[in-house]
């Protein structure tokens, strides 16, 4: 008897852990292929466009609710006509209804009311300052007044973001986005994104464009033999490869990529017909022109007036200086990093994606953040001056 019990217990110890497996095998409950994200992450206006499609469908079908919110259909026939808000909404200072506003004139959302569901206007739309909006859709120009907050997304033909706005979600436009100073953002996407050139104070004035003066020295081409010892130039792939920190003097030009396994710094007004990569920090001197992409494991600092045709990508932070241009009309690019700071006067064609924090700075901030490119402790200097 004892032996049988012992055997039973022993077998139980072995079998019990297998019971869930046997059950899942015989009666599958989790057997579908892992779902694959098809496009959302690669399509910044996805949320706005999906909302527009759902709303169109709901309106055509006469639905009264969408996504758990009641739909308030409004036809406004005059500019500045007020929204028919309920007394309870006015008293609470918030509306949880989804507003679908038809009309040809611009819509001005009222003061004192937060919109906790989407607001859709067929024409232009102006938010009120200091207020909170879940999402904003405009068939024309969307103007986000100063100090307002957008939680999920805002979309329009054009979008103007006022000073001090907090944009927790995506802001996308069919044509242009204009962003004032002091704005926190996450994702901006449009064929053209401009950062306001002037703030409210004299210290916010953008410095003049950093371009070579007629008397400044001409560019010097870097020949393959000009790279210092320790930098390997591979003519087959047109790539300079440096294992330690590297500085390139101002006003140098070269054709090819530069890959540096440490910090990389370019002096002012360099021209690179290729891409740059640094595993450490990467500093591009003011007025430089990079025809390729810029990638860094550390932070990237673009000096004032830099032009980058390709994308700019850092695993830590990017500081875009005043008057910089990334991408070109018709040639989109992405600026992405966990932390991004953009100075006034910059223009980006494409997407700016700050994974943690993005903000627009003042010109004064940008100037104070700019490190001296000679402070990066290189072990090799290209150009002959240490």
């Amino acid at each position, binding site marked *: 008897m004892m032996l049988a019990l012992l055997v039973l217990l022993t077998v139980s110890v072995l079998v019990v852990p297998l019971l869930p497996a046997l059950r899942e*095998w015989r009666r599958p409950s989790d*057997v579908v292929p*892992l779902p694959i994200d098809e496009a959302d992450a690669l*399509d910044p206006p996805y949320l706005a466009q999906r909302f527009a499609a759902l709303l169109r469908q709901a309106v055509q079908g006469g639905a009264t609710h969408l996504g758990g919110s009641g739909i308030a259909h409004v036809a406004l026939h005059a500019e500045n006509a007020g929204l028919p808000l309920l007394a309870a909404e006015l008293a609470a200072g918030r509306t949880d209804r989804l507003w679908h506003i038809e009309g040809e004139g611009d819509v001005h959302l009222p003061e004192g009311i937060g919109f906790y569901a989407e607001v859709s206007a067929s024409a232009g739309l102006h938010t009120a300052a200091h207020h909170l909006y879940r999402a904003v859709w405009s068939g024309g120009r969307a103007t986000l007044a100063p100090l307002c907050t957008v939680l999920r997304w805002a979309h329009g033909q054009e979008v103007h973001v006022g000073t001090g706005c907090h944009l927790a979600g995506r802001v996308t436009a069919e044509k242009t986005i204009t962003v004032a100073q002091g704005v926190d953002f996450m994702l901006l996407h449009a064929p053209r994104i401009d950062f306001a050139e002037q703030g409210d104070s004299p210290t916010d004035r953008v410095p003049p464009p950093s371009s070579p003066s007629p008397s400044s020295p001409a560019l010097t081409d870097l020949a393959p033999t000009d790279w210092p010892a320790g930098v390997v130039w591979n003519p087959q*792939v047109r790539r300079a490869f440096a294992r330690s920190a590297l500085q390139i003097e101002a006003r140098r030009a070269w054709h090819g990529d530069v890959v540096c396994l440490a910090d990389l710094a370019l002096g002012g007004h360099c021209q690179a017909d290729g891409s740059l990569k640094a595993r450490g920090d990467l500093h591009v001197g003011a007025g430089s022109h990079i025809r390729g992409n810029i990638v860094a494991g550390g932070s990237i600092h673009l000096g004032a007036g830099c032009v980058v045709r390709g994308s700019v*990508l850092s695993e830590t932070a990017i500081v875009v200086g005043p008057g910089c241009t990334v991408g070109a009309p018709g040639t989109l690019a992405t600026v992405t990093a966990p932390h991004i700071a953009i100075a006034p006067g910059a223009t980006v064609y494409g997407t700016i994606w700050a994974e943690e924090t993005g903000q627009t700075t003042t010109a004064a901030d940008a100037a104070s953040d700019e490190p001296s490119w000679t402070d990066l402790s290189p072990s090799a200097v290209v150009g002959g001056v240490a």
Partner: protein
Amino acid sequence: MTPFSITCAWRFVVGALALWAVPALSGVQTEPGTALGYALASPFGAVWAWSLVGLMGLVMVLLTVYTLRHYVFSLNRLFGKQRHPYASIVSADWPRVTIFVAAHNEEDVIQDCLENLMRVDYPADRMVIMPVNDRSSDRTREIIDAVVARFPGRITPFHRVSGKPGKAAALKDATALIDTDFIIVFDADYMPSRGLIRRLMAPFFDPEVGAVMGRVVPHNVGANLLTRLLDLERSGGYQVDQQARMNLGLVPQYGGTVGGIRISALESVGGWHDDVLAEDTDLTYRLLLGGWLTVYHNRAECYEEVPQNWGVRMRQIKRWSKGHNQALVRHSGALLRNPALSLIERVDGFLLLGVYMMSPILLFGWVLSLLMYFTVSMQVLAPALLLIAFMAHSALGNFAAFFEIATAVHLDRSRQRIHLLAFTFMGFIVSAVAIAQSVLEQLLWDRLPGKGFHWDKTVRYRRAAVPVAAASTAMSGSARTPVAAEMHP
């Protein structure tokens, strides 16, 4: 290629090994006058006894190293900083790319792959799709040509009718025909998703990147128990193993499919080698030694078809094992000597290369344990301590790889499939046996005259979505003649 299952397999085998070794270790026979407090006794003498102990110690050290590696990877994925540096590139001046679809007798699956590629969101004018029809003897050519006719100008087929067999040889010939700076390679049973090409191309904006690897996701999960186990294994291998190596700056592996290659990088390291069985592993290491980075992109996911019966699975893993071990012989010396790589890169690269050798080493360990059991008695510590050590090893070391699977399932938010984890032992034992067998073949059988390496194509289970007759009908139209590049090397 996923060496992940192999590392899991030998871990399990070592557990059983320890079960045998512990009684030997705990057999107390105190011998007076021994050095360092250790007492050994054997009828074959002290040299014999110490040799066995030394070899067993080596096996155990290897086990510990690989176990630690798995734990580090799992913990990194759970709690460490995650690196997806190229995942946010959504707007760009996308470069031209050629997409190879490697096909050898793929009449059942090639159409789905090509049609999926027609639906991707990459700019059509910057994407050349080239099915590499490698000496197929079935209706692969007809089906490809029918798809070409339906999408005029979008697909440039390469019908290879002769030449050296093998995927690497076919890709080598196909690469000579293209004029783009990048290629992406798919196997014919893969079903690319809409955003996949852009995800795979994004890392190439980094001029240091020579190759990109995406994540492989089984599609026929529900076929049977084997496919469900392989689904778990793939999750662990990609979601944890590859991504952790990416996070830690180690050596992600280009896997031969769902991956991209920079042509200039490929050429700078000698192009395709058509005398290798695992062109992917071979290329990963040549790029690494040539100063190029291989990147793993966990969000570049693509469906594949996994084997549905054990025989096919064993043949597949034997082929991988032979190719991987071939790369081990070719590259380990250069890897370990390369001063340009960091120590951690060299060590991890070597461990990755050696992963398929662990099965035969463990079989050797089994033999050692038997010999120790019968011929050596020793006293190291009190038997109770040995028991504790064994328990700790079984509970922690043995299950390190399974911990990776559990981590992956958690990250994938799959709730119930983790229950099948207990069955994965079965699959890992099969893998261990298959690999050991392949190593023996490689060492003995394949060296015989006239043998050499044999490319064993993986069986497909999916049947063609459109009957071949329909494909033939489509070809009878006026647009039936595609611009086909034929090559007779």
